[in-house]
C-alpha cells in the first residue's frame, strides 16, 4: 500500500466483504479513514470482518444481508449511509459462481448466479442513487476478466458481462450529477477461497504462469485499483472497465 489519501469519515459500503477480495477492499478503505459498512450474508462472518478492521484501528460497521433480496438492499444502504443520508462509495463485490458445462448447468444455478452477481448490484445502485448523488459519490463494480468468457462458467461469465454493461448504463445516467460508475475486472486472484480448493489452486497457478505478468494477483492489488477509481484521482474516469489481470485480456 503506497498511496495515502483523505477519505476520513467517508461512508463506504462493500458487499461480500467478509473475506477475500472484498475484505481486502474493506481494509484498504478503512486504512484511509473511511467508515466502512461491511456486508455479507452470514452475520457471524460480517462480525469477524468488522472486528478485524477495528483491530487495525479502522472504523467499520456490520450491515449483513442478502443482496439478492430487494428489500434487504434498502436496509443495507440505509444503514451504510452517514447521518445526513449520504453514501460516498458503493463497492459491488459480492458474487457467487457455479462451475458446470451447459448440459449440467441447472436453471437454479443460472438464476442464483444472476440474482447475486447482477441483480444485487442493480438493487443496491437503485436503493443508493439519492445517497450517492448527495455525496457526489462513486460506484465501483467488481466485474471479472471472465466477462470475456471462461469455459464451464456460463452463468458467471454472463453475469459479469452484464455487470460491465450495467456500469456503462449507470455512468451515462449518473454522469450529469457528478456520480462516477466504473468496474474493475480482476483476473485470477490468490484468495483463501482459491487456496481452499487444492485442485483449483494448482490449476490457477499453472494458468498464471502463462499470463504476461506470470503470477496470480494479490487481493490488495485489486483493492488499490478500486480505491483509486473511487478517489478524486479518477475524477474524469467513468463508465470504464479497468482490467487488473496481469495483462491477460487486453480488451
Amino acid at each position, binding site marked *: 500500500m503506497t498511496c495515502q489519501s483523505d477519505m476520513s469519515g467517508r461512508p463506504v459500503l462493500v458487499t461480500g466483504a467478509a473475506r477475500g477480495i472484498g475484505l481486502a477492499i474493506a481494509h484498504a478503505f478503512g486504512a484511509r479513514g473511511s467508515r466502512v459498512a461491511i456486508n455479507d450474508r452470514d452475520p457471524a462472518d460480517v462480525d469477524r470482518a468488522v472486528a478485524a478492521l477495528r483491530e487495525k484501528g479502522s472504523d467499520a460497521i456490520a450491515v449483513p444481508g442478502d443482496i439478492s433480496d430487494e428489500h434487504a438492499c434498502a436496509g443495507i444502504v440505509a444503514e451504510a449511509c452517514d447521518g445526513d443520508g449520504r453514501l460516498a462509495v458503493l463497492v459491488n463485490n459480492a458474487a457467487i459462481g457455479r462451475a458446470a458445462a451447459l448440459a449440467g448447468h441447472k436453471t437454479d444455478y443460472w438464476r442464483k448466479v444472476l440474482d447475486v452477481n447482477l441483480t444485487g448490484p442493480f438493487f443496491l445502485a437503485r436503493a443508493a442513487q439519492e445517497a450517492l448523488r448527495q455525496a457526489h459519490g462513486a460506484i465501483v463494480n467488481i466485474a471479472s476478466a471472465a466477462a470475456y468468457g471462461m469455459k464451464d462458467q456460463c452463468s458467471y461469465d454472463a453475469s459479469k458481462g452484464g455487470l460491465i454493461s450495467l456500469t456503462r448504463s449507470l455512468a451515462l445516467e449518473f454522469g450529469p450529477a457528478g456520480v462516477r460508475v466504473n468496474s474493475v475486472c480482476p483476473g485470477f486472484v490468490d484468495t483463501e477461497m482459491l487456496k481452499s480448493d487444492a485442485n483449483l489452486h494448482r490449476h490457477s497457478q499453472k494458468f498464471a504462469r502463462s499470463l504476461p505478468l506470470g503470477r496470480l494477483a494479490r487481493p490488495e492489488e485489486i483493492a488499490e485499483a478500486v480505491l483509486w477509481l473511487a478517489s478524486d484521482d479518477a475524477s474524469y474516469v467513468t*463508465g470504464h472497465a479497468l482490467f487488473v489481470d496481469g495483462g491477460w485480456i487486453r480488451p
Partner: protein
Amino acid sequence: MTITNSLEGFTILVTGAAGGIGAVTARTLSARGARLLLTDRDTGILASLGAELAAEYRVADLDDRNQITDLVDWADERGMDALVNNAGIVSMAPIEDFPDADWDRVIEINLTAVHLLTRNFARCRIARGGGGAIVNIASMSYKGMTRQIAYVASKGGVVSLTKGAAMELARHKIRVNAVAPGMTETEMTNPADGSQDRLRLRMMEQIPLRRYGEPQEIASVVAFLISRDASYVTGEVIHASGGARL
C-alpha cells in the same frame, strides 16, 4: 477524496513536457515524489519548468532517430526507470485532401517515436536487470474522429503498441499502459478568443460528466499507472473521457 500515489524513488522521463498535459503531468509526478527528466522541442518553457521542478531537461526532436537514442541514453545515465510518452501532434484536414507530408510527420512523432523510445527504454532497463513502467498518452480519438485521420490512426497504433509491448516486456518486470484522454481543457480546445465556445457546448452534451477534463485529471491517471498501486495492471488503456465514447 484524493489519493496520493507515492512516486518516491522513481525517475521519470516525460516527453512533450512543455505542452498542456505534459507540463501538468510533470508537476503532478514531481509533487508525488518522483525525480523528473524533461524533454520537448524547444528550450523556453522547458527551462522554466526544469527550474521550477529542480528537474534536468534536454531538448530533442522526436522525428530525429539519433536524437531519440541520445535522449534515452542521457536519461538512462540519470537513473530513468519510468517513461511517459506524451509528445504528440495533430494535423487537421479531410481525408480526401490529407497531405502525405502531414501523414508522415504525425505517424513519425505520435507512433514511430513512441516505439523507438519504448525500444530504447527496454534495452536500457533490461541491461540493468529489468523493472520499470511506461505510460503512453493515447486519445479517445483512436475510436474514430473526423478531419484528423493520421492522428486517429497513430493513436490506434499507440493503443496496440501498448498491448504488444506489455505482453513482451512483462517478463522483464516492465509494465506498459496507456491513458486515452477525451476532450481536455487546453489552449487548443479552449482558446482565449472564444472561437471554440459553440463547439464546446455541443461536445459537452455528449459527455456524461458534462464538462471537459482538466489536464490534472489526466496526470492523476498517469501517476496511478506508474505507481506500485498498479502493480498487476499492464496492457490496459484507461479511458479518461468523462464517460464519452464508451
